[in-house]
């Protein structure tokens, strides 16, 4: 398939997944605020840090108030990772590959975009919980429609790659930020436990975690979100499936033949044999930071191998 088309399907899925994750972060934070009346500023700043774009936020807004942060992450069209910007980019990507994806996918992206755009015609903040739930649902619908209406061909696998790499990256980020803030020296206050629950909820992992570990404790939360083989938002599970898609694309039997496969295999096999104890002794922050850069290398490898080759 055309390199440009593969590139666009990859980013179409990354952007949709990114919008969904932003909605999750904000939604969970809102819930947390309702649960416990703590100082508001402290609760909203980590959200900006999670995105990795704190500097851009400070350039645009004076204080990390709820309103400012929510506006930055949702409707700020000058910020390229806001929900509206993600949807706009996703839609442009979808538009440029309309002939390669199913009409149903296009219609889903198109109405997703208009849903976000029309939710705030005058720039005021929407009915928040409803809005973020709607974004999450629309993203799930997109993934479902894609799965059910597009042939699971090369393009579909590029889409999977985009979605899974984005998801692994976001899970790593949110865990990193929360871990950093909560410093895992045992479970202290009830507030801490609520924070961990919030973290799990922001990855939709709360219920699945409870089934696997029952008790909330930071080490197991990290174990679950990094190493769980079955939870679809854990870093490891994302990598397992992303690697499978990568080999479906190249048709290789599992021995790497390009930089995308090599970097992917390297990270995946590291997680194969690593334990949470080792990660924590390395320093969980360092480990997660390293994982994020490795994910970037993989993305670069994909780009070099498939999207930008020269004659």
């Amino acid at each position, binding site marked *: *398939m*055309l*390199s*440009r*088309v*593969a590139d666009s399907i990859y980013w179409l899925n990354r952007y949709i997944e990114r919008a969904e994750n932003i909605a999750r972060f904000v939604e969970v934070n809102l819930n947390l605020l309702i649960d416990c009346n703590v100082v508001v500023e402290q609760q909203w700043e980590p959200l900006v840090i999670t995105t990795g774009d704190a500097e851009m936020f400070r350039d645009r807004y004076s204080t990390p108030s709820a309103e400012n942060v929510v506006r930055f992450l949702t409707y700020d069209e000058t910020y390229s990772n806001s929900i509206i910007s993600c949807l706009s980019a996703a839609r*442009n990507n979808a*538009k*440029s*590959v*309309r*002939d*390669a994806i199913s*009409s149903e996918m*296009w*219609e889903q992206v*198109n*109405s997703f975009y208009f849903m976000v755009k029309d939710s705030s015609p005058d720039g005021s903040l929407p009915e928040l919980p409803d809005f973020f739930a709607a974004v999450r649902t629309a993203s799930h619908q997109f993934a479902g429609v894609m799965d059910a209406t597009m042939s699971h061909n*090369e393009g579909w696998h*590029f889409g999977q790659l985009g979605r899974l790499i984005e998801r692994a990256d976001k899970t790593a980020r949110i865990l990193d930020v929360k871990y950093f803030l909560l410093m895992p020296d045992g479970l202290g206050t009830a507030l801490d436990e609520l924070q961990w629950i919030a973290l799990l909820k922001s990855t939709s992992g709360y219920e699945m975690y409870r089934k696997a570990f029952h008790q909330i404790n930071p080490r197991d939360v990290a174990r679950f979100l990094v190493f769980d083989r079955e939870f679809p938002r854990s870093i490891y599970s994302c990598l397992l499936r992303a690697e499978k898609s990568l080999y479906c*694309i190249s048709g290789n039997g599992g021995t790497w033949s390009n930089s995308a496969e090599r970097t992917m295999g390297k990270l995946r096999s590291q997680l194969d044999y690593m334990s949470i104890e080792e990660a924590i002794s390395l320093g969980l922050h360092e480990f997660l930071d390293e994982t994020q850069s490795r994910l970037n290398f993989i993305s670069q490898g994909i780009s070099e191998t*498939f*999207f930008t*080759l020269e*004659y």
Partner: protein
Amino acid sequence: MQLSSYQLGEFYDELFLADGSFRPAATTLLDRVATLSIEQLQHHQQMAQLALLKMGVTFNHYADNQSTEKILPFDIIPRILPIGEWKWLEQGLKQRIEALNLFLADIYGDQKIIKDAVVPAELIFSAPGFLKPCMGLQPPRQIWCHITGTDLVRDKDGKWYVLEDNLRCPSGVSYVIENRRVMKSTFPQLFESTPILPVEDYPSHLLSTLMHLAPESLLSPTVVVLTPGIYNSAYFEHSFLAQQMGVQLVECRDLKVANGYVQMRTTKGFQKVDVIYRRIDDEFIDPQAFRSDSLLGVPGLMEVYRAGRVAIANALGTGVADDKAVYAYMPQIIKYYLDEEQIIPNVPTYLCSESNQQQYVLEHLEKLVVKATGESGGYGMLIGPQSTALERSEFADRIRANPRNYIAQPTLCLSRVPTLFNDGLAGRHVDLRPYILHGQEIYVNPGGLTRVALNDGSLVVNSSQGGGTKDTWVVQ
């Protein structure tokens, strides 16, 4: 709804006879419309427009440096053509395309028509669409104009005329197909009870037309649609046609000339392209051959094309044949190549480059429509009867400064079709653009795009200037 209050005015109406009764081919439709309330009709109309928006059947409209995405306003009252009349139009269009194709081959070949003094050399060589680099070109199967959209109009007395030919990248055919799809869900019973010729097979015909250009030795040639990209006003159509034909939609940046062939960049390396359906204007297709200042295009494409290693539809250089001044010579062109009389007449045309005709044009500006010969889309036009004295004097200056660039025609009183508004049906002026494919044979898609000037009294049907569309039914 009461249809008796519908005002025919002094116009030819496509659905009603002059005495207010229904035209035979429109009876089933109008009987059905009469049973619906205006609210019901408007509801149908809104649903239809919503369906088009959802499908993304939109065009990009540029104004004040801002791009907005709009659906082309769609009106649910169709235009109806009886089969007999259509057969005659079809024959006239086939004749025209055959002659235009021979004309193009001649102009870029031996130029016999110039040597025989049928068309003045000056007129051809001064046409902006005449491309010198195309001289001596031998396109595959000697076909130049594979895809044509010819604009037809009907005057007050019911007589048909050809208004202009579009031989470069005519657009709009996707609306024909999507409008039909929407109409079928709006009036399903009508489609069951009325024999309406189908339009949906256009993409299959287009694909055969394109495949016909590939070397016979190739078992499965690679056909692509070349688009300028998502910001082009007709982008929807480009992707729609590629999707319907199941071929790749490519942008210039996907293509590269290497090893003497045009190749596209794929995830598995470079792959040869055999046939390009290009939706990019000639001048922007190859910066090496045409405009070195252009950032668009595929450098070296022209050379590959000239060597016969890629087919391009439409061929490059076809613009010379839809020049509005060359148009004036169509009756002679048809006579010269086919030894036939023109079936569908031209609108009488005054060439401002001829001094006696220019004199007449300048003296009768308030009655004429003046058009720039190289423009399209309703731009660069003066509609005499609706113009101000100031506009006329400005146009007179422009004509004197560059007479070759202008032609004039009498203002035709375009026929009307009932169109739905808040307070009921009102007559609006329409034209008709059928789509003609020249492959192994010449094929005309039944009907075509009916464009309607939605503003009261307006004669300009272009989408950029308040135009909308209707479905067109050829009824057996």
